[in-house]
């Protein structure tokens, strides 16, 4: 293969002819697209004030949190619950199972088709 072979192979490619209905299919798609209403723009004007307020609250809370952490050590603020006994854990597990069953049952009733 010589120096110009790559150029010859890649530039002298056979020209593909689009199928007979191609232009019609494209125009159909274009017409369908033109009838679709434009997407509703994101309501930045409404969201922006709320986002600013949320940002302000977040910053204020962060500052308050940092101030609190400086005043009191972390160990004083967070007191991890100590496990008392195995009976307490069993009750917690049981209550979780009962809650889960109740939720599933109520969802089943709610999703049932009306007769």
């Amino acid at each position, binding site marked *: *293969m010589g120096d110009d072979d790559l*150029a010859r192979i890649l530039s002298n490619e056979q020209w593909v002819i689009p199928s007979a209905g191609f232009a019609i299919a494209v125009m159909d798609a*274009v017409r369908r697209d033109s009838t679709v209403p434009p997407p509703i723009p994101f309501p930045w004007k409404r969201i922006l004030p709320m986002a600013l307020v949320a940002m302000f609250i977040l910053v204020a809370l962060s500052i308050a949190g940092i101030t609190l952490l400086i005043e009191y050590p972390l160990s004083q603020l967070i007191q991890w619950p100590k496990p008392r006994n195995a009976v307490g854990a069993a009750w917690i597990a049981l209550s979780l199972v009962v809650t889960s069953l109740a939720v599933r049952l109520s969802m089943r009733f709610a999703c049932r088709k009306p007769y």
Partner: protein
Amino acid sequence: MDAAEDEAAVERVLAGDTSGFEGIVDRWQGPLVNLAYRFCRDHGRAEEMAQEAFLRAYRSLDGWRREAAFSTWLFALATNVYRSELRRIPLRTLSLDEIAEPRDERATDGGFEDKDRDRSVRRAVLALPAKYRDALILFYFHDMDVGSTARSLALPEGTVKARLSRGRKILSKKLSQRLGPVRLGEEF
């Protein structure tokens, strides 16, 4: 291709006449389908990709700044669409180490062998890393015009030249293992 016709068609579409786009489709369907075909080597998929490119062009006609020719804008847009499509659904290509097929033993006059070799080279281009593949495909599609290639890829000409050079080197290395010594010189 008449630039004035394109501009008139664009004006019609922007004024609300959708049928004005027919002229653009008629004039550019061949180039866009062929460019897509070089990216995927599948006629059906090439038409799907070209259709998507036309749709995107229709939706963003008002984004065509008249500083560049309509064709430049259309090719850049189509190239973007094709590259995105290939990223979304990659080609089922073989790796560069697997591309070359065994030579056709029936070849006596070189005819079969040439076809095999040409096919191997084209498949090897598709198996290149995307940035080299795109540069090579567009360079040869645009009749070896670095400027047009750079505009289609929205890259500086220097970057395109570097990618072409590197792509050629990779191709040369991989193909020479299978097809014999390859010397792919600089052509720009």
